């Protein structure tokens, strides 16, 4: 399973490295969205660090939706799914590989956006560094959930519009918990209760993905 996961992750990351969609499209989009969020708050409030975590995760949500869609699009070229199916790869490994590749892409984008939050929204650097572990775990949770939801909508009628409809409510607990733990790292409230939710969500989505991804591949 681990070997398959590693192979699939490397394949997805190699496609990403060659196409440079992440570098030239997704990261600039995220940076622009973060900047516009600051503009929406207005000059008087844009430097209010308490808004930083919420806006960071709002932009992460947009970016994650783009990347989940992208992660499924690279599988939807004619014959790809059939070829993967005939290879007889362990579906749990395929799920873990796709989730890992998506998580790495989200981590890269997340780091850029975190730096942007410090620069544009004046979030305290020390708080942002403290929040980094929770951000990485939340993004890994989003990657697991996103890989599953991406596979659920792949190839369906209106897949690109259905994906946000399904993902937004499913992501909500993760995003809320991520935002609260980020805020806690900045000194607003307790940290551990939110960490627990992030970890439980990561384990739940990861576990369901390992168990059920095969069913989605079969179909």
């Amino acid at each position, binding site marked *: 399973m681990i070997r398959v996961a590693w192979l699939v992750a490397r394949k997805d990351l190699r496609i990403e490295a060659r196409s440079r969609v992440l570098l030239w499209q997704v990261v600039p989009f995220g940076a622009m969205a973060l900047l516009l969020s600051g503009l929406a708050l207005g000059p008087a409030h844009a430097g209010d660090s308490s808004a930083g975590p919420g806006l960071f995760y709002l932009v992460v949500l947009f970016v994650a939706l783009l990347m989940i869609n992208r992660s499924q699009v690279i599988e939807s070229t004619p014959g790809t799914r059939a070829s993967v199916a005939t290879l007889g790869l362990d579906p749990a490994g395929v799920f873990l590989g796709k989730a890992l590749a998506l998580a790495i892409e989200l981590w890269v984008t997340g780091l850029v956006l975190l730096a942007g939050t410090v620069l544009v929204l004046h979030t305290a650097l020390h708080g942002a560094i403290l929040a980094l572990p929770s951000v990485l775990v939340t993004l890994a949770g989003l990657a697991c959930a996103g890989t*599953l939801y991406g596979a659920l909508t792949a190839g369906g009628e209106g897949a690109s519009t259905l994906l946000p409809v399904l993902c937004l409510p499913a992501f909500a607990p993760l995003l809320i918990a991520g935002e609260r733990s980020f805020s806690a790292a900045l000194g607003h409230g307790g940290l551990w209760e939110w960490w627990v939710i992030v970890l439980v969500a990561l384990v739940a989505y990861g576990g369901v993905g390992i168990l059920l991804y095969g069913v989605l591949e079969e179909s």
Partner: protein
Amino acid sequence: MIRQLYQRLLGPVTLVLLALTIWLGVWVTPPDKVQGNLVRLLYVHPAIAWVALYVSFGTATIASALYLWRRTRSWVADRVAHCAMEVSVVFIILTLITGSIWGRPTWGVWWAWDARLTSTAILGVLALGYLALRRANDDPTLRAKRSAVFAILAAINVPIIHFSVQWWKTLHQGATVFTSNRTLLVHGSMAWTLLISFVGFTLLFFWLLRARYRLEVARERVERATLDAALSQRQREGAL
């Protein structure tokens, strides 16, 4: 015999119990010491929420799991999951409406960003998403598998809703019928009304589920008949 009895009695028994709930809740039970007459809404709201979150969503999740497990895979399980989820949407909306009506005079607002309210609303959107997902796939096997996986994923939200009042301690009150050590907090006519309401609304769910299931079977039959008619017409045209 039992099946026939169930089919014949389910509707009338449900109606009697719901009528009894209204009669007891509105005319027989006394007003609450703190809430006054507002307490009468609580004879329906918790029962509706019970059906929405646990009975209907639980039925949809179990039926979905049965469909996904190869040994128990059947179209009956898929249909039950679909129909239970549709009924669940109705009950989740009713939960939010009755809660909102109670919240306005009690909390002063129709809606509050409370953990339980928000997580219940999220569950409602997930249930609607399930129905959207079913409509997005034409192939019945693909549709059944994908929606079954989605139902199981959506069910992760149910324990979050259940424990939200303990985890976050926001506006919505915690357990009010039993204490944490199983001591009953509601007594007399109030307790009986609540019990009848819970049974009545649970039976209403099964009644609606049965009706919706029969409708689904009829719809599939019509769909097949229409397809057969179109095919034979095509064959006749080809023979000419």
